[in-house]
């Protein structure tokens, strides 16, 4: 049985295109053109019928998609990938802090959306499934249970803060983490405005992990929003596309 995705998009052409693209990837796509339609489908889908992921466009004819996001978050931890129409970093941050898992900005490529969906599904229900503890990609090995970081064959020593920052990103590898979330999780709630801490520690981490720190391949900057650790090479066994 395929993973079930609710696609909330009011533009007909984009809805059809995305439905086809996601169907080709093997997902069971249920399109919805409005907030009302999406709410109805969500309330009908219970138990084994429930959705595995939401793709949510924000500008809908009968209201703002963020209202639906808040509604969904009150009931479940289903992953939500937001389609944002504007280059409004403030809005993206608000949505991510309100519980959205990731976002794409129009115009986006199908590949980009698929990558976001894949990562969001992998991290879905982290409260239930075992948390991500290992990260491997292009010579970088991070093991959170052993507290070890190996880069291109040699062990790398990190300060406690550097390690906590990296560990936070590893737990949601592939997903964007806002400045606020990172600062709150690593330094504490009273540090959420100290973005200059992030700049300095991220530079130190990059110097230790990246081949070319000025052109990072692992620790990416999402300008104005936050940071993203690039997806690991081989997804863990619990995050394949199909349910068994």
């Amino acid at each position, binding site marked *: 049985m395929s993973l079930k995705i609710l696609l909330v998009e009011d533009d007909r052409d984009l809805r059809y295109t995305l439905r086809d693209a996601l169907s080709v990837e093997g997902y069971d796509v249920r399109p919805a053109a409005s907030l009302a339609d999406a709410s109805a489908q969500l309330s009908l889908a219970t138990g084994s019928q429930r959705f595995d992921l939401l793709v949510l466009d924000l500008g809908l004819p009968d209201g703002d998609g963020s209202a639906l996001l808040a509604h969904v978050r009150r009931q479940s931890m289903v992953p939500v990938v937001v389609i944002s129409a504007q*280059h409004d*970093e*403030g809005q993206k941050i608000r949505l991510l802090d309100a519980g959205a898992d990731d976002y794409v900005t129009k*115009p986006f490529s199908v590949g980009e959306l698929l990558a976001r969906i894949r990562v969001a599904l992998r991290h879905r229900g982290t409260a239930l499934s075992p948390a991500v503890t290992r990260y491997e990609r292009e010579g970088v090995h991070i093991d959170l249970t052993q*507290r070890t970081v190996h880069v291109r064959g040699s062990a790398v*020593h*990190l*300060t*406690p*803060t*550097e*390690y906590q920052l990296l560990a936070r990103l590893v737990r949601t590898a592939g997903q964007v983490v806002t400045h606020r979330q990172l600062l709150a999780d690593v330094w504490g709630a009273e540090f959420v405005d*100290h*973005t*200059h*801490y992030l*700049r*300095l520690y*991220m*530079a130190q981490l990059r110097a230790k992990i990246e081949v070319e*720190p*000025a*052109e*990072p391949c692992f620790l*990416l*900057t999402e*300008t*104005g929003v936050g940071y993203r650790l690039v997806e690991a090479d081989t997804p863990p066994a619990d995050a394949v596309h199909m349910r068994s």
Partner: protein
Amino acid sequence: VAGLLVWCVGALATVGLQGRVDLGSQAMPLVLAAAAVGLWWPRVWAGASCVVAVLMFNWFFVTPRGSFTVSFQRDMLLLCTMFAASVGVALLVARQRQLASIQRQQADQVRQLHALGQQLRQAESIHEVCQGLTAALNALALVDVCTAVVAVQQNAPDALQVLGPVSPDEHSGLTICQAQSMPLGPGTGRYENQPVLYMPLRGRSKSPGAVLIRSTGLPLTAPDTLAHIQAMCDLVGQAIEREEASRHATEARQLAHDQKLRNTLLAAVSHDYRTPLATILGAASSLQEQSDRMSSAQRQRHVDTVMDEVRQLSRLTDNALQLARLDAPNLRLLTDWQSPEELVGAVLRRVRMRDPQRRTHLRLAPGLPLVRCDATLVVQLLENLIDNALKYSPDDTPVEVVIRQQGHHLLLAVGDRGPGVLWQQQASMFELFERGQHGVHQEGIRGAGLGLALCKTIAQVHGGTLVYRSRKRGGASFELRLMIEPSPMVDTHDEASA
């Protein structure tokens, strides 16, 4: 009182001199005293005091004493001389005193007008202008307390905006006064029975308003007082006119600016959007109609073309929207501490997609400080500059991105080895919708004008500068300078390794 005292002293001195000097000399203190009172008393009183002095002298000292008759001709002459001299001196002194007082008053008025003018120049609103006038009227020594209610003609040409409480009668008084540009009320010769004074706030040709003056003290009827008040009112009238003129000018400038922006965006849409759209339509329709007769390589090339052109359109749209957004009057930047390395890293990540040969080289000085800026905007600026450099220079030449500290500034420079910019165009290329001349002839190069205008605007909203410089061995260099502020402290207590 002082006058009376001097007069008495003079009289006593005259009595004291009795019998010691001759009659003529004995009269002198009295003559002097009578004249001196002119310093304090009004003219009529001073004159009267001289008459009294002469009559008393005659009564007490001139033979026969105790009567006004004069027996000797010489005494008659003395009395006449004494009278003429004391009256003459008293009147002259009094007149002099009056002139001095008028001069003082005029100087005061000039000073007051000057102060009011100064105040009006600094006033920022019509309310402040009116407060200035009320304060100046109250400062007039002649008036006890007065309240001024100002009415101005603003926006609507036929309606007065009254800044204070007035009765219906007073409102019509203000309207008449403003419309006719003439004062009315007591002392003005028009509507003398009115309880309050109305003064027009006269501008150059018409009166932009009028003022109503209620005073609790003496009525302000003296002609020179009225003239002074009118002068103050005229200052206010001119100030209101000036303010209105500058407001109109600002509005006109804003309108022209909006118009220009609209035209620019329209021009960008009509010009820069057509070519990508035509290319996309060409490639897509070709795929639709000829797909079965194409090789897979040809199909892929068409698909790549569509993707490239769509990205180009997307960047154009981003630029146009950002330019419009930055132009809004209540612009708010999302500034934060940013690392130059991180900013340029984000730019390079995007640029690499359109730079498969990796022509872009980064030279980043070590240990750069953080800068306060809106990351999205600075990234967009650098992306535009690098994009332009890649587009406007030959495919086999490098594009260099240099970031280093230069005094109190952070320098971010993007240089290429292309043809550079003609000196005739260097001044205008940052203006809206200009384009390097070579762009017109060279294929595949479009839309730099909007981008450069946006870059300049982004630099400006950050308080920075963006300048063009021709490179020594050929090529263009665009240099962005951002101010470096003292960075905030970071508590790095955990330097021990994990």
